[in-house]
């Protein structure tokens, strides 16, 4: 009897700890959601300026590179630098003057060229504002970010080359990951060594909830959906990716020349920016168009124009297949790039 009651009591204790665990998880999720709504209108671009201090000789030139990393699924538009205060005798030119758009999950680069006149040696400061806009559904926001440039004017200073900065893959958001991972990994090791399972499980749970929330905050779930919803023919091995210049065969050229004209025929190429074979499909259509007077073409980004993809029937079982070459006159849809030249010629033969 006594043992029974002890067991029951310990079971009650277990239930209580389970309840505490579940409510902690719930509180965490709620907290994250609340934070997400409060910061919904935050700046979306991560701005980094290279180098920290611009070193240049008097009457010299130096370039400062601003890398605008867009880690969200929202496109940023019209990024432009406005100068606020510039030391006298200094000129600053932006190249390009304005960045029309920064695609989701990619970087934009603005180079500021500093030219100093006859300035004495010393440290100067220039301040500016970076302005860009972005739209979320129907509401659009303008974001203004202050920028400060520190210039070190010295005789004999050699400006730092900025060419290599910000080129290549975006690593936006890497720093918080490294810090969080290091802290959590250290905690995990400590608790695992001490065999404190509750702590280990809680930390793993924290990692899961935190990473999910951070990912959703940066619209990474939309990105995942986008990746799944577009099928590129070379990606899962439906065909091999083709690169390079398509060289139309002599037979194709002569047949194209012999076609009855001048009935204008439009060819559409549906592509995705990350698709390996798409440039080749575009090149084939360009080569066809170069041979004749009567072929017009348009390249359509399926991720930006899903409604056009649906209209021209390049969606197969809810998946947009790229590259897809479409002949609207006959409704022919050619997927992939394998034997595209022959298939496209064949499709052109059957046009009215």
């Amino acid at each position, binding site marked *: 009897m006594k043992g029974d009651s002890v067991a029951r009591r310990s079971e009650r204790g277990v239930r209580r700890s*389970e309840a505490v*665990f579940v409510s902690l998880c719930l509180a965490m999720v709620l907290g994250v959601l609340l934070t997400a709504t409060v910061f919904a209108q935050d700046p979306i671009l991560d701005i980094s300026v290279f180098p920290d201090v611009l070193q240049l000789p008097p009457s010299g030139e130096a370039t400062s590179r601003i890398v605008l990393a867009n880690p969200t699924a929202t496109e940023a538009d019209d990024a432009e630098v406005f100068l606020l205060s510039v030391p006298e005798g200094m000129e600053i030119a932006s190249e390009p003057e304005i960045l029309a758009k920064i695609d989701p999950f990619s970087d934009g680069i603005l180079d500021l060229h500093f030219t100093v006149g006859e300035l004495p040696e010393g440290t100067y400061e220039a301040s500016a504002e970076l302005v860009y806009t972005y739209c979320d559904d129907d509401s659009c926001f303008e974001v203004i970010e202050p920028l400060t440039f520190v210039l070190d004017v010295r005789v004999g200073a050699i400006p730092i080359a900025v060419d290599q900065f910000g080129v290549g893959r975006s690593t936006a958001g890497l720093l918080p990951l490294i810090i969080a991972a290091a802290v959590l990994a250290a905690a995990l090791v400590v608790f695992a060594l001490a065999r404190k*399972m*509750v702590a*280990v499980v809680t930390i793993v*749970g924290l990692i899961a909830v935190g990473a999910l*929330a951070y990912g959703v905050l940066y619209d990474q779930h939309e990105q995942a959906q986008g990746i799944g919803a577009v099928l590129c023919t070379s990606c*899962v091995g439906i*065909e091999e990716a083709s690169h390079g210049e398509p060289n139309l065969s002599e037979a194709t050229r002569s047949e194209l020349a012999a076609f009855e004209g001048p009935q204008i025929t439009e060819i559409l190429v549906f592509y995705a920016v990350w698709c*390996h074979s798409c440039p080749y499909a575009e090149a084939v259509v360009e080569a066809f168009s170069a041979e004749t007077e009567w072929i017009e073409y348009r390249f359509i980004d399926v991720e930006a124009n899903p409604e056009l993809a649906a209209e021209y029937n390049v969606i197969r079982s809810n998946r947009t297949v790229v590259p897809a070459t479409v002949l609207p006159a006959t409704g022919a849809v050619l997927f992939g790039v394998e034997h595209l030249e022959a298939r496209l010629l064949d499709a052109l033969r059957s046009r009215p």
Partner: protein
Amino acid sequence: MRLLSRLRLQTARRIVQASGVLFGLFGVTGIGMTHIIFPGLHCYACPLAVTVCPIGLIQNLIVFGTVPYFWIGAIVAYGLFAGRGFCGWFCPFGTLNDLLSFRKVRILKSASFGKYAVLVGTVIAAWVMTDTMFCKICPAASLEASIPYLFMGVATVNRPFLIHMASLGVTLVGMVLVARFWCRYLCPMGALLSLFNRVSFLRLRLRKDTCTSCGVCATKCPMGLEPHFDHDNHNCIKCGLCATGCPTGALKLTVSPRRARD
């Protein structure tokens, strides 16, 4: 789970597996791709799929250079919930492995680390070649994408198709010869989930006082493990076949957050 009698545990598993196949392979068409990452190896190119393949996604994210917070969160959440339990209970490709589990043998134990090599290789290949290299040889993609698209007129019989068929053929032969061949030695998703096996809520419990070390469980295990010695193995897929077969009821499959060292 405790309410289920031992036999009904396997019935429940078959039902969950069937729902995994329905949800994964034959996701309700018309709703399109969702934001959900599938907790198993399952091709998102599969014509009726509505979920994203975690291995395919991570390769794409590496190609883009995105820090995959959402992906990490999803994988860790799945791992915390069931660890490799998804291999035994949900993954459609795991279910295929299951159906072909004729020879539950204990061989090539050290080769089970091959799947970590596959995982690391997949990641490195994606980074170096900026392409989804694993997808081009993945047998799940052969079965769920290559073959259906052949009949839909998107794919043709060409070299990539034959490579897919070869990888599928080799995997199928392997599965027939060694139970859960793919899950044991090669699956990168299994490698990922196995990292969480020791913390997952779904787990096998061994009552040392009732276990007689008879070894019946080891003959039932499709992964070639010995649950009576090591019930918390990183390769355990929590299928519960050992618990069903245990003559003394010392092994049990339970779902609960871990508290102490058990």
